[in-house]
């Protein structure tokens, strides 16, 4: 069989209209920023999963993405998923198809760094839909990634910790230089990924260069037990910067 259809497809590739698979954490926010620098970000796509064990989409404060999208001036395509393995992939496909229909996207961007599980599934869905798929953080050095977040001026808080020997003092803590230094030390001593790529930490972005307004947390609830816990944001608002 000849790949003739690939050879004859005229493709003049310039800027690509993109959706970002957006969780509200540091990685998908940095991916959004990098995509804004090179292409056209048309919308954010969020999958709100009911399953706390989901490998693909679960994050403790997914509802904050609506405020983040407002602050960045980007439309949000928000879909619910039960988080059932493989069915959640169909949910992602439906969400991206919706983004194609509403915003004419030609590609999707993820914040994947190391997870071949996530990368493979997004690549497959993108291919089925005829979308480009970009992973600008792919294999990025995780210490470098943390400093990139700081250097770009993002305000990020830790909204979940799920690894020994992290204690409840990490919950709600802003990621600054001291925090990054401590995370790197923990990675050396205990094998924790310094960026939380292994699920050791979850983050929520409150402010940054893409944000027109800052997010202020008005009320939050902390739960912590056996080196695992989360900060659930109960109420938040946009405030002037």
């Amino acid at each position, binding site marked *: *069989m*000849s*790949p003739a259809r*690939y*050879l004859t*497809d005229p*493709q*003049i*590739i*310039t*800027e*690509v209209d993109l959706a970002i698979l957006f969780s509200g954490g540091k990685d998908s926010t940095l991916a959004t920023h*990098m*995509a804004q620098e*090179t*292409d056209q970000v048309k919308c954010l796509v969020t999958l709100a999963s009911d399953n706390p064990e989901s490998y693909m989409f679960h994050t403790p404060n997914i509802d904050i993405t609506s405020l983040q999208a407002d602050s960045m001036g980007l439309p949000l395509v928000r879909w619910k998923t039960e988080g059932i393995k493989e069915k959640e992939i169909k949910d992602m496909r439906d969400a991206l198809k919706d983004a194609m229909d509403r915003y004419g996207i030609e590609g999707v*961007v993820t914040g994947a760094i190391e997870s*071949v*599980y996530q990368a*493979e599934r997004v*690549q*497959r869905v*993108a*291919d089925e839909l*005829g*979308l*480009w*798929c*970009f*992973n*600008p*953080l*792919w*294999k*990025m*050095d995780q210490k470098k990634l943390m400093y990139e977040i700081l250097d770009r001026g993002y305000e990020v808080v830790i909204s979940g910790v799920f690894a020994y020997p992290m204690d409840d003092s990490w919950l709600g803590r802003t990621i600054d230089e001291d925090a990054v230094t401590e995370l790197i030390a923990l990675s050396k001593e205990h094998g924790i990924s310094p960026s939380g790529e292994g699920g050791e930490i979850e983050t929520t972005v409150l402010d940054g260069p893409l944000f027109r307004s800052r997010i202020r947390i008005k009320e939050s609830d902390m739960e912590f037990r056996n080196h695992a816990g989360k900060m659930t944001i109960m109420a938040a608002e946009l405030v002037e910067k």
Partner: protein
Amino acid sequence: MIGIINMCARGLVLSKNEFLDPIASAIGDSCKAEVYHRTEIQQAIKRAEGIILTGTPLKDFEFMKDDTLLNAISSIQIPVLGICAGMQVIAQSLGAKSYECMELGMTSISTTAENPLFTGDFKAYSMHKLAIDIPDGFIQTAKSDMCQQAFWNGKKIFGTLFHPEVRNIEIIEKFIEFASDQS
């Protein structure tokens, strides 16, 4: 110096982060590396002791229409490691046929012939829609359940359909050593 040849279409700036930077990281400080776009491959060949051809996104086949690249590869004399699209373009430049074959994700790979870069059975990350026949003068050095996964011409030209920069960077390190020994 190793030349890393960015095989992605020029407009796909975000792809550089995904397909080129991980190779540069794998090379690290072990030797000097310089980056070239595929349209500048002649400059790289003049300067480098070996070149690595990167992969491309699943939708990017622009490289197959790049005559400058195809001509340069067909007569290259320095060590080459073609990764995914890089392997496909080596095969195409030598008249071998491509065929549709999609593999995505971690793939079981079996070594089928002794070669300087890898041995035995291992898992590697695959992301391709095309596979290729083995060009004349080359041997298959690895396969998966679905297709030929690597080749070598017994001299200086290697190809892997899988992406060693994702989970098998020792293969890139061995290629760097090989290229250094040849210079």
